[in-house]
C-alpha cells in the first residue's frame, strides 16, 4: 500500500526491484551521509541507494521519475571541503555508486588507457597497475587516495604529472540520462557492440557531448575511459623555495615558459608556507587566541624555519632515462629559477627529509598519498572549504590576487593557505579555508571569507573551478543569465522531471 511519503514508496519499489541491499533509510546511515565540512548545517538525504550496474542506475532513475524523487549521485564521497557525501538539498536520495560499482573494466596496455566504474579509487588503480606489472602509471591527486578517478575527472579535478588534466585525459562515457536513456558518447555512440575508438578518440562524428557531464546534473556517468601515461624510467622531482610573499610574481613568470615549451612535463605547483606546513603541524597559537586571530608573522616564520621552507615552494618533476640523463635539464631549471636572485634549490635528498614535501614526491611519481589532508587538522573543529579560482599564468595578475586574497583571509581571522597549480596558460589557485566548525562565530567568518573571495575573483573576471555544494547557487548567480537559461534548457531536455540533483552546480 502506498504511503504518503514518496521516499518511502520509492525505497520500497527499489527494494522490490533491486533487492533490499540496494537501498537504506536507516537513521544512522542518513545522518552520516548528511555530514560535511562546510559552514552550514548538515544536509541529510532521504535515502541512500547502492546500485551495482548501469541497469540498476537506470532502474533508480526510472523509479525516481515515477515517484518524483530527486537523486544525488556520488562516487566515493571523498569530496571533503566540497560537500563530502551530502546532497545539495535535504531529502535527495544519495546514489552511492562507489559501494558496488567499483570495477576496473579494462586496462589497455598497448594504447595506454583504462575503463573504470565510478568507485575505482586512485589507490585501487595504482595497486592494480602494480599487480599487473604494468608499464603505465596513474596521475594521482595530492589526496585522498580513496577518491574516485572518474568523479575527480568529472568535477574538473587535477592531479600530478604530465596527465594532470584529468577531464582532458578522459575519453568516452556511458551515461544514464534523467529521462532514463542510456547513451554512449563519442565513438561509443555507433550502433553495435564493438567500439574500438570509444576510449581513444574524442573527434568522432557530431557534437562532443562528454563536456556536458562535467560539473553538471544532466546524467549519471556509469563508466568512463581514462588515458594513462607509460611510466618513464626515471622521474626526478625538483623543489625550489623562496623567502617572501611578494616573490610569487617572479616565480609565476618563471614557470610559464617552462610549461609553454613543455621543458617541464608535469604541472608545476607554487605553494605557500602554511598550505604545506599545515599538513605537518597544528596552529601553534590557536589556543591562545581562541582562533580569533590569524597566526602571527613570528609564528609563521618559526614554522618556516623549523621545516626549512620559505614563503613559496615550487615543485614539479622531470622525466628521463636515468638520473644522469635528466641532470642537465635539472641544472637548467635551477639556473632558470635562481636567476630571480633569491631562493634556493632543495635537493631531493633534503626534500625526502621534509615531511610536507613527500606529497609532491609521491604524487609526481604516480603514488597516491593522503598526507596533504592532514592539513584539515590545522584548526580544531573540522571545518574546511576549498576555493579553486583560476588565473592567467601572469606573475603580476597572480600576485595581485595573492595580496588581496591574503588580506581578505586575515580580515576574517583565518590563515591564508594557497597552492597555485600551474599549466602553460592557466593556473588554478587552490585556497584552503580551514576553520573550527564547532565555533559558530568562526564558522560565520569562514562563510563570509569564502563569499568575499568569490566576489573578489568574480569582480576581476575570474571564475572558480570546483566549488563546494552550498555555494553552487551563489556562483551560478554570478553568471550571465543567458548561460544559466541555456543550462536550464539542456536540463529540461535531458531530465524533464528534474530527478537528477536539481540545484547541483546551480542548474535547476
Amino acid at each position, binding site marked *: 500500500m502506498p504511503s504518503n511519503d514518496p521516499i518511502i514508496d520509492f525505497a520500497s519499489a527499489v527494494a522490490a526491484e533491486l533487492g533490499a541491499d540496494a537501498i537504506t533509510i*536507516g537513521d*544512522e546511515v542518513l545522518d*552520516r551521509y548528511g*555530514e560535511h*565540512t562546510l559552514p552550514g548545517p548538515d544536509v541529510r538525504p532521504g535515502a541512500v541507494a*547502492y546500485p551495482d550496474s548501469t541497469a540498476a542506475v537506470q532502474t533508480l532513475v526510472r523509479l525516481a521519475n515515477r515517484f518524483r524523487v530527486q537523486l544525488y549521485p556520488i562516487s566515493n*564521497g*571523498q569530496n*571533503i571541503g566540497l560537500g*563530502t*557525501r551530502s546532497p545539495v538539498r535535504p531529502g535527495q536520495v544519495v546514489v552511492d555508486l562507489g*559501494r558496488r560499482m567499483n570495477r576496473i573494466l579494462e586496462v589497455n596496455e598497448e594504447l595506454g588507457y583504462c575503463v573504470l566504474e565510478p568507485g575505482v*579509487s586512485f*589507490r*585501487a588503480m595504482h*595497486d*592494480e597497475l*602494480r*599487480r599487473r*606489472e604494468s*608499464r603505465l602509471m596513474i596521475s594521482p591527486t595530492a589526496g*585522498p*587516495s*580513496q577518491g574516485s578517478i572518474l568523479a575527480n575527472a568529472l568535477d574538473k579535478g587535477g592531479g600530478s604529472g604530465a596527465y594532470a588534466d584529468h577531464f582532458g585525459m578522459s575519453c568516452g562515457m556511458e551515461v544514464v540520462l534523467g529521462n532514463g536513456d542510456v547513451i554512449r558518447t563519442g565513438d561509443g555512440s555507433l550502433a553495435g557492440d564493438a567500439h574500438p575508438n570509444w576510449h581513444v578518440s574524442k573527434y568522432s562524428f557530431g557534437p562532443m557531448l562528454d563536456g556536458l557531464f562535467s560539473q553538471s546534473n544532466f546524467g549519471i556517468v556509469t563508466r568512463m575511459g581514462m588515458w594513462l601515461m*607509460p*611510466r*618513464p*624510467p*626515471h*622521474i*626526478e*622531482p625538483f623543489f625550489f623555495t623562496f623567502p617572501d610573499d611578494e616573490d610569487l610574481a617572479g616565480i609565476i613568470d618563471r614557470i610559464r615558459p617552462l610549461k609553454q615549451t613543455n621543458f617541464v612535463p608535469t604541472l608545476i605547483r607554487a605553494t605557500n608556507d602554511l598550505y604545506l606546513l599545515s599538513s605537518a603541524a597544528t596552529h601553534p597559537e590557536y589556543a591562545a587566541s581562541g582562533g580569533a586571530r590569524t597566526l602571527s608573522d613570528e609564528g609563521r616564520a618559526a614554522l618556516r624555519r623549523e621545516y626549512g621552507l620559505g614563503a613559496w615552494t615550487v615543485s614539479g618533476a622531470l622525466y*628521463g*632515462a*636515468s*638520473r644522469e640523463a635528466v641532470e642537465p635539464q635539472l641544472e637548467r631549471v635551477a639556473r632558470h629559477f635562481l636567476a630571480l636572485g633569491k631562493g634556493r634549490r632543495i635537493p*631531493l635528498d633534503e*626534500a*625526502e627529509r621534509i615531511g610536507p*614535501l*613527500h606529497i609532491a*614526491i*609521491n604524487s609526481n*611519481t*604516480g*603514488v*597516491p*598519498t*593522503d*598526507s596533504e*589532508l*592532514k*592539513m*584539515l*587538522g590545522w584548526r*580544531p*573543529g*573540522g571545518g574546511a572549504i576549498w576555493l579553486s579560482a583560476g588565473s592567467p599564468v601572469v606573475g603580476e595578475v597572480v600576485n595581485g590576487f595573492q595580496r588581496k586574497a591574503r588580506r581578505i583571509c586575515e580580515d576574517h581571522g583565518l590563515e591564508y593557505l594557497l597552492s597555485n597549480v600551474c599549466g602553460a596558460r592557466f593556473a588554478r589557485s587552490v585556497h584552503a579555508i580551514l576553520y573550527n*566548525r*564547532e565555533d559558530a562565530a568562526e564558522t560565520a567568518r569562514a562563510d563570509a571569507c569564502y563569499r568575499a573571495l568569490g566576489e573578489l575573483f568574480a569582480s576581476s573576471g575570474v571564475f572558480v573551478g570546483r566549488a563546494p555544494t552550498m555555494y553552487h547557487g551563489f556562483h551560478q548567480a554570478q553568471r550571465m543569465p543567458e548561460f544559466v537559461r541555456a543550462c536550464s534548457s539542456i536540463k529540461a531536455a535531458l531530465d524533464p522531471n528534474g530527478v537528477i540533483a536539481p540545484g547541483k552546480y546551480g542548474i535547476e
Partner: protein
Amino acid sequence: MPKTIAIHRQDQVRAAADACVHFGFCTAVCPTYVLDGEELDSPRGRIALAREMLGSDAPPSETAVRHLDRCLSCLSCESTCAAGVSYRDIIDGARERIEQSRVRPLPQRMLRSAVARVLTSPALLRSGLAAARLLRGGALRLPGPLGAMAALSAAPALAALAPRPKAPPARRAAAVRRVALLDGCAQSVLGAEINAAAERLLARAGVAVEPVAGVRCCGALELHMGRRRSAVRHMEQTVSRWAAALEDGRIDAIVTTTSGCASVIKRYDALLSDRPGLAARIRRVVDAVRDITEIAQELALAPTGAAQGLAASYHDACSLKHGLKLAQAPRRAMAALGIDVREIGESHLCCGSAGTYNIFEPALAQRLGQRKAAHAAAGRPDVIAAGNMGCLVQISRFTPVPVAHTVQLLDWATGGPAPRGLENFQPRAAARADFPAQAAMPASTTADNGDLLW
C-alpha cells in the same frame, strides 16, 4: 551502575572521541566497512557507539558490544585520520568498559578468560596446541571460536615457523653489544624459529642476546581484549625487569620481532600514566625498544647471495605500519641484502589476524584473510613476508605460497638457513629495481622497466 573505568581515563577516552569531526576518510580504509559498508562497523560508527556508551551509566548495549567487537584495532583509520583522533585510546577504553560491565553471557566470558590465559602462558599454550592437533578432525567442525582455534592450529605457517630440531650453529662475531630479545608469549610456542633467526642474525653482527629473567608478557593481548587490570600487571612486571637490565648496563636495547607487542610497549608511558613513580623507568624502556629491522639496518651485515633476487611480497603488519609507523625499515633492510621486495594491493587493509580476532570473529577474519592472501600471491612471489607472526599464520591458511618472517629472510640472506619452503630457491642474477610504493614516505624515483623510447 558504578563507573568501572578510572575517571581520568574515561575523560581521556571521551576527549579522543570528541576529537572526531566526521571527515570520513577512515571509512574507506576500515576493513570491516570495506567488506560490508555497515556504518556501525566503521570507525565513525564505533566512535559514536563508544561515546554514547561512556556517556551513560547504563550497561553497554548488545549493538555496541557487537560492533566494537568487530573492530580489528588495526589502526588503519588512525593513519588516515586528518583530525588526529587517537582511535587506539577509544577502542581500548571501550573494550575495557565492556569487560568490566560483565554484560557478555557467562560462557562467552569464560571462553575469553580461557583464551587470554592460554595465549599468554606458554606452558598452557603448548598443551592446548597438542590437544588441538589430536582433536583436529572433530574440532574443525566446531562452530565459532573453538573451530577457529582448531583451524589456526592447522595453519601451514605453524609448521614453517616451528623450531629446528637441530639448530645450525650461529657464526658469532665478537660481541660488541648486548640486547634483550622479546620472546612473545604466543610466538615463543608457535613460532620459535623467528627468534632463533633473530638471534643468529644479531650474533653474526656481534650483538649478543642477553636473557632477562622475569619478562613474561607485555600485556598487549589482554589490553586489546579489554582486560586492562591483568594487562597492567604484566606491563609493570615487564618494565621493572627490563629497566633494571638497562640501568645496570646488561643490555642497551630491547629488540622485538613481534610488532603487535612492540606497538603496545611503545605506548607504555601513556598506558601507565597513572603510575607516576614508574615514569622514568617506563620512558627508559620505551626508548630502548626497537624492531629488528630498525636494528638490522645499523649492523654490518654482508649478503651471501643465497637470497639474491628472491621475490618477496611484503605485507605490512598493521602493528608495524599503523601502530609503530614503520613502513620503510623492513623494506630497506631486505632490499639492502638483495631481496626483491614487492608491494601488494590494499596494503593498508588488515589480513584479519589481529591478535585474537581470527578466534572470536572467524567469519570476518576469513574473508579478510582470503582477500589479503589473494593480493599477496598475485605477483607470483617466491615468498610472502611480514614482520608479525600472527599475519603469517593467517595468510598461510589461504595460499600455497610459502610465508616467512622478515627476520628469517634477513638471516638467510646473511648466512642462515633457508626458511622452510624456500630450500630449493635458486638465486637470481639481479633484483628487480625498487618500485614506487608508499604514500607515507617518498617513493623511489627510478625504475628500470621503462618504455624502449627512453
